[in-house]
């Protein structure tokens, strides 16, 4: 049984101008200790997906329209707020994008760091503080007892993200949701932070959902990958399948636009156009207007995620029907 099993999750935001469906029938499984990468351009609904799972979507204006998220036998989308609260910070830890704003500037590092211990484990202040010092040391922060008494503004961005990681992992959660943990950091720090998450994951045997808009971050870390666009899953499968043998033209285009996947000297590709307006109903493939391989049925026909025999799933109609594989231009790009 998977640790977390999400099916048909949809989340919308309501405003005077109408309803925007930001997450649309998303489903995935993640096993104990596994790493799942979720990638997609910004605005594709990755963060809202994470918040939906942990009850952090502001309601109103948001609503969870449908879906099920079974975590150890408990549906995260329907259980009581009290039950969900007892899971958050305890069995599910979260790391956010911007370490500059995600820590409370008015509270000392120590008092924020050990809060999950005092809330969920009922530890005394003294015990919690000792564990907090260990946790800071574990994420590579030196002079931890002194650092505990300091405030966030006395830490650099990378150091703050280390604190966030220590805080998310302090209760040895079964699942860590890391929403773009390195996006706001310097390139030199990014790799360190990713290594740290990987090392701690290994040590505590936690599953990790690693969200990013940068496919390069996912490669080499994640066992399975899911590509999101306009709130939907366009492609998913093992890392080898999705990153080395991508099928969906969107994944393709995404790779071509990233330095990590292009040959040195080749110019970076820019995907033409912009993501669709989600307040309007999209009939066909949401990527069709920007896709260089679109034909009539992409725009007008139904578009569904299809799991192929090898477990590699894509939502491209032309792939699922098999006709795109015959396209010489597509094949050329594919073998390049």
């Amino acid at each position, binding site marked *: 049984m998977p640790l977390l099993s999400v099916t048909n999750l949809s989340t919308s935001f309501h405003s005077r101008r109408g309803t925007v469906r930001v997450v649309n029938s998303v489903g995935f499984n993640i096993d104990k200790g596994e790493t799942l990468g979720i990638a997609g351009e910004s605005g594709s609904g990755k963060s809202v997906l994470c918040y939906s799972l942990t009850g952090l979507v502001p309601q109103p204006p948001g609503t969870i329209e449908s879906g099920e998220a079974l975590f150890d036998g408990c549906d995260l989308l329907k259980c009581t707020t009290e039950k969900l609260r007892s899971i*958050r910070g305890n069995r599910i830890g*979260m790391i956010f994008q911007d370490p500059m704003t*995600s820590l409370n*500037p*008015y*509270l000392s590092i120590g008092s924020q760091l050990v*809060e999950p211990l005092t*809330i969920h484990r009922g530890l005394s202040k003294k015990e919690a503080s000792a564990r907090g010092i260990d946790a800071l040391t574990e994420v590579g922060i030196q002079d931890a007892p002194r650092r505990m008494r300091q405030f966030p503004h006395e830490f650099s961005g990378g150091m703050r993200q280390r604190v966030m990681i220590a805080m998310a992992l302090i209760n040895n959660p079964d699942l860590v949701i890391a929403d773009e943990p390195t996006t706001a950091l310097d390139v030199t720090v990014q790799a360190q932070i990713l290594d740290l998450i990987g090392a701690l994951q290994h040590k505590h045997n936690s599953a990790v959902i690693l969200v990013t808009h940068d496919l390069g971050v996912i490669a080499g870390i994640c066992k399975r990958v899911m590509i999101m666009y306009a709130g939907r899953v366009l492609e998913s499968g093992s890392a080898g399948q999705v990153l080395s043998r991508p099928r969906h033209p969107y994944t393709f285009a995404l790779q071509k636009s990233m330095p990590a996947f292009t040959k040195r000297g080749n110019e970076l590709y820019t995907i033409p156009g912009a993501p669709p307006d989600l307040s309007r109903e999209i009939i066909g493939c949401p990527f069709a207007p920007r896709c260089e391989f679109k034909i009539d049925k992409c725009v007008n026909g139904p578009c569904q995620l299809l799991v192929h025999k090898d477990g590699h799933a894509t939502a491209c109609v032309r792939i699922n029907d098999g006709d795109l594989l015959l396209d010489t231009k597509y094949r050329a790009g594919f073998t390049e």
Partner: protein
Amino acid sequence: MLSFIVRRVIETIPTLFIIATLTFFMVRLAPGGPFSSEKNVSPQVLRNLNEHYGLDKPVLAQYAGYLKNIVKGDLGPSFKYPNRTVNELIATSFPVSLELGVLATALALALGLTAGIIASLRPNSLADYAPMTLAMAGICIPTFVVGPLLALLFGLNLGWVNVSGWHSFPDRVLPAITLGLPYAAYIARLCRSGMLEILPQDFIRTARAKGVPEWKIILKHALKGGILPVVSFLGPATAGIITGSFVVETIFQVPGLGRHFVNAAFNRDYTMVPGIALFYGSLMIVFNMLVDIAYAWLNPRIRLGE
């Protein structure tokens, strides 16, 4: 911290000097003198009085003498209350004003913070509009209207409390409410806007993600930052509560320092006026210093004295 306090105290000396100088000359410039309201004073008696209090000396000499006494902490003899010094009068009546002020401030904080927090949790709902409308009314209606109205309703019509005097605890209720109400209203509005600024921030989401209970998110994670506008308002508020207490003490016949100040001005009490002004001036300076210390304690990004 200590160096901040020492520097602050040194910085206040010129302020206090200016207060002493201005009030000293202003009360002397006002027409009449301390003994002009006493009828049937023979010129001989008047001359003796003036001599006794040193009013026969040149003004500048009086001023020099006054400053010399102040430095020693002696505010001089009262002109109006024979045989009593200004220090004594302050010592007996200030505790009453202090009690009134503390009660009013406590009430204002309790009421204002509660209303402000509740309003901020459901912005633009009834739970927001109702207390905020009341707060607006509280700010707009002046004390000299609220005081007599309350006295009329609870004192005369319902007979629950006395309308004047300062003997038992119920006597404190109406003056404290009258004095504290407008500040409760300001505090409610400031607290609401402060909280509304903090609640949507990322670090509140982090607290939720940690499983912090909602009440603790509000009282621990949000209030410390959300209360900052209220704390900076407490400086001017203490000044307002002190001057407001002049009016309230007169309305409810409270034997506090405010009433003495009003009377001293009417009576041209040449030592009482600068004395009380100096005392209140120092008090406000101390309060503002406490407010600054509290602010720096709440907001770790602020360093004292920078």
